[in-house]
């Protein structure tokens, strides 16, 4: 069965979410991944979103476009203020946080603010929103994005969301005592961070992808195991659930 990059990202990340955990999910792929996990192996996964929602239940065909609209709050168990949602995160209640970004470096630092100098940027991006807070406070961070050379860069122009900073103990030394970047999910590979150097490395390849393809699409040196594991492609039932959730393919992208 053919599938889009967004479908692949949603399926791969959904498989990483365990039952009974609490996930801080943005709209789009993170929400699809979380809703898919709830519909398959993690029925007791609680979805929290930034606009002030605890316990989102996705309604097929009516996925929220922003985290603070009625569609996101449907059947929630609590609608706290935005500040409160992030204070729950800072307190340590949330197991998973999802992030994407325009630029990502080998240590998982993410830029969603500016390309070029901050005072007079060449490209003004939308900004942090809650990204900087999510990466600082959630217990496990999943970076989920399409794999492109212009995105995976040796140095980000601006650290909007601090990952492992310069590697090693730098994150803790900056005062970020909690949270770990656990996975980087792309349409080419599943990656994680070296336990000591904290540099990104390949863990497994997506179905049909070769190592060279990953290297060609990454703007920095990437360690790859001699025999990388292979991820199984999206199953038919996973794709069916995603397509029921987003029949207009607002977030899943056009097929073919």
């Amino acid at each position, binding site marked *: 069965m053919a599938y889009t990059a967004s479908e692949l990202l949603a399926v791969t990340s959904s498989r990483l979410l365990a039952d009974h955990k609490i996930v801080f999910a943005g709209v789009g792929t993170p929400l699809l991944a979380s809703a898919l996990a709830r519909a398959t192996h993690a029925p007791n996964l609680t979805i929290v979103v930034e606009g002030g929602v605890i316990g989102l239940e996705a309604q097929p065909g009516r996925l929220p476009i922003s985290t603070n609209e009625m569609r996101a*709050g449907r059947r929630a168990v609590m609608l706290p203020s935005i500040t409160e949602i*992030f204070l729950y995160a800072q307190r340590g209640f949330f197991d998973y946080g999802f992030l994407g970004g325009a630029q990502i470096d080998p240590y998982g630092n993410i830029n969603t603010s500016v390309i070029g100098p901050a005072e007079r940027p060449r490209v003004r991006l939308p900004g942090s929103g809650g990204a900087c807070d999510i990466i600082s406070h959630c217990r496990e961070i999943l970076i989920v994005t399409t794999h492109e050379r212009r995105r995976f860069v040796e140095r980000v122009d601006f650290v909007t969301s601090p990952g492992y900073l310069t590697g090693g103990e730098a994150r803790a030394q900056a005062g970020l005592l909690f949270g770990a970047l656990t996975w980087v999910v792309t349409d080419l590979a599943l990656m994680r961070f070296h336990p000591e150097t904290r540099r990104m490395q390949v863990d497994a390849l997506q179905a049909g992808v070769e190592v060279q393809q990953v290297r060609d699409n990454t703007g920095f040196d990437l360690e790859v195991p001699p025999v990388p594991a292979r991820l199984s492609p999206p199953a038919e039932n996973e794709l069916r659930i995603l397509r029921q959730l987003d029949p207009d393919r607002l977030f899943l992208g056009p097929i073919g």
Partner: protein
Amino acid sequence: MSELTFIDARRRLEAKDRSLRDKRTSLVEAAALVKDGDHVAIGGCLYSRTPMAVLRELLRQRRGRLTLSRNLMCYEGELFMVAGATQELVTSWMGIGLPWGLSRVLREFVEGGRARMEEWSHLAMGLRYRAGAMGVPFLPTLSMLGSDLRKTAAAKTMVCPFTGAQLCLVPALFPDVAVVHVHRADRFGNAQIDGYPHMDADLASAASTVILTTEEIVDTDEIRRTADRTAIPFFAVDAVVEVPYGAFPHECYGLYEADLDHIGAYARRVASEGVEAVRGYLQDYVYGPETFDAYLALFGPSRLDRARQAARELTR
């Protein structure tokens, strides 16, 4: 840009009339409480409960040199920039939503040096308003440590005197004016919000002046019967204006859904024509219709009914 200290903000509050009086007024008079050069904090979040009626009136009255702050800034920021009403935005994010991509107008203005976007994390925005609401000069947080946001925004770090841990300190934000749209309020300004509270209660406490628009004005007895729902007390409020559909085409929880067709059409026009599209929109939806009713008439009753029906279904 005026940056009030907690002492200035306290003195201002003490000096103002906080009496239990009828504060009902018109949009025109309420908007006149905003002066050129003021810092205006906008209630709601993105396209939820945006105080559109007052924002429209501020643009109509050609207010200028404003600083606008909001947790997530939607296209109202574009309208104010293109209208020449602001060059200073304080926010954590600006755009409309994922399907519509980057704000072309924000890009043109900031990249061209014609406007500045002061960026904070979303929690930092919340804590800045919260510190203002608490009447203290700052709050500590673990957000923004290690981030370049800490350097470009006016945050500081300190070593915790109790634990030795590093902390990021965000300064209180005391807006000159907060503009908030709510579901119901009495004539004194006791205000109730259904659904998402966003950051509105903190905005109302932090600001020197609060302009409230409400879907309906109700009797104080009704407020008393459901006092647990009151989010903003009368003594924080300076003006109350009854404006049904006052957030439209943005949503008001349980009452009407955002008009995503309208927002999408705007976004597509801006994507192809840039600033000119915003000028056209200002003419058609802001400067043209003289009253808010005339503005709503542009959408027509069937569109408003559809939004109301959708909201009922979503919050059933």
